């Protein structure tokens, strides 16, 4: 049976698509699934850095499409989980170097090999986004709790509904519980209310996410952290587990004193 193809998208840039792709991919691998993460952000690749696999790239997705290598050769195996692979984007090419049909065929080929194919979509709603979402059976729409991001996510959900009718689930990233409590930030309920799609993940803001990504060791590997757990929870939900949403609490006085946040 072919694996499930899932695209991570947002419309707006900088909301955490690549971080989320890396963490969910690793999370699924930690749960024992076979996964291929495809970086569809041709020309602006980052997924390799976040997964800590940058120095292992030999071929990329464009090389494969142009017939310069076999599919297996283009895949980069993860250094921690032997059943996790990454298909890197080409850094020196433009987004239109790949057609929608080509992306579909690559994704379906990948799905023959593994349980999950995750596609990291580029920002925007143009060709790159269309390519990345065309093969998807499910799109995870990422929004930050801010107006501009929610509005762009709304646009993306609308396009998905109209063009491909692909189901979409929502991930709200960078939630600051203390700001929500002071009513300075949109509450997750407000975002869900506006987008009217089902929630699949709530990720609290955590500076550790950034440092972990910079080191190429995504935070999901650190089971103790709330953000790491939030990512693993999304992976579990994708596998069909019914994981309740952990209440997001502001860091306590002592936690702040100890500098653990």
């Amino acid at each position: 049976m072919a694996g499930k193809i899932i695209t991570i998208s947002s419309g707006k840039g900088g909301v955490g698509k690549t971080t989320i792709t890396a963490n969910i991919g690793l999370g699924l691998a930690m749960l024992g699934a076979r996964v291929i993460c495809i970086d569809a952000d041709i020309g602006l690749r980052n997924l390799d850095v976040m997964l800590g696999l940058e120095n292992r790239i030999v071929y990329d997705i464009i090389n494969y499409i142009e017939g310069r290598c076999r599919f297996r050769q283009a895949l980069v195996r993860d250094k921690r989980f032997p059943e996790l692979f990454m298909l890197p984007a080409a850094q020196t090419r433009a987004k239109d170097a790949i057609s929608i049909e080509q992306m579909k065929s690559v994704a379906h080929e990948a799905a023959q090999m593994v349980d999950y194919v995750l596609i990291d979509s580029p920002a925007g709603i143009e060709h790159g986004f269309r390519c990345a979402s065309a093969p998807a059976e499910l799109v995870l729409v990422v929004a930050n709790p801010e107006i501009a991001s929610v509005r762009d996510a709304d646009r993306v959900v609308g396009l998905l509904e109209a063009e491909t009718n692909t189901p979409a689930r929502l991930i709200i990233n960078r939630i600051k519980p203390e700001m929500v409590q002071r009513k300075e930030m949109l509450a997750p309920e407000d975002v869900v209310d506006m987008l009217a799609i089902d929630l699949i993940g709530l990720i609290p803001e955590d500076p550790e996410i950034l440092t972990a990504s910079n080191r190429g060791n995504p935070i999901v590997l650190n089971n103790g952290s709330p953000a790491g757990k939030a990512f693993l929870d999304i992976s579990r939900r994708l596998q069909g587990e019914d994981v309740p949403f952990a209440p997001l609490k502001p860091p306590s006085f002592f936690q702040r004193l100890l500098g653990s946040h």
Partner: protein
Amino acid sequence: MALTLKGTQQGIVLRPLSDSWDDVLQGLENALRDAEAFFRGGRLIAEMGDQELTKEMLTALRAILDRYDMELWAVLSNNAETIHTARTHGLRTRLPGETVGVLPKDQPATVPIPPDTASSGGTRTDPGEYALVVQRTLRSGQSIKYPGHVILVGDVNPGAEIIAGGHIIVWGKMRGLAHAGALGDEHALICAIELTPAQLRIAGYFGRPPEGRRRKLVPETARVSEGAIVVEPWHTRE
């Protein structure tokens, strides 16, 4: 009146009422100019009846439509010559059973074609007026344009728009742009359970909600009164 223009699910239907094609074209041009925002980008169905449509007439019609980014989509006729002319120009001469609508083609409408008022007249005790009923969330970048009334059961998100020839009734949150009476009807209303739009327009009038947060959200109705758009809460209405 040299012609009638009627919005349907399939497109805007033009029916010439004059034998002079020049008069029809002049009337069309005036109508398009008066409600450009409404017609722009739409598609036209010419319902010619027994009247002949020659190649020259077709070219003149297309020239006008081009200026408004409109497409001549179909020619309906009882005249064999006209049907032949239309076909050789790549036009439809019959409407498909499937409805696509005056809505942009990426937004399939969820309702059947309102029956032709003229042909169904007399069969109903209360003729009422036909409206487009849409049940869904209207998201950023999506728009509904309809010559009659529009009833939306769902929310209109910021960045979305409804442009209607008649009233706009939103059973939900109206947070995008609403333009009622877009063909010039100043008596058109905009009602919503939560009326917090980016902007309201009724006929040629234009209004913005006051800045700042409102205390309590109640269902409201916007109308034109004494040359301005006024918004009244539902419960104080008589």
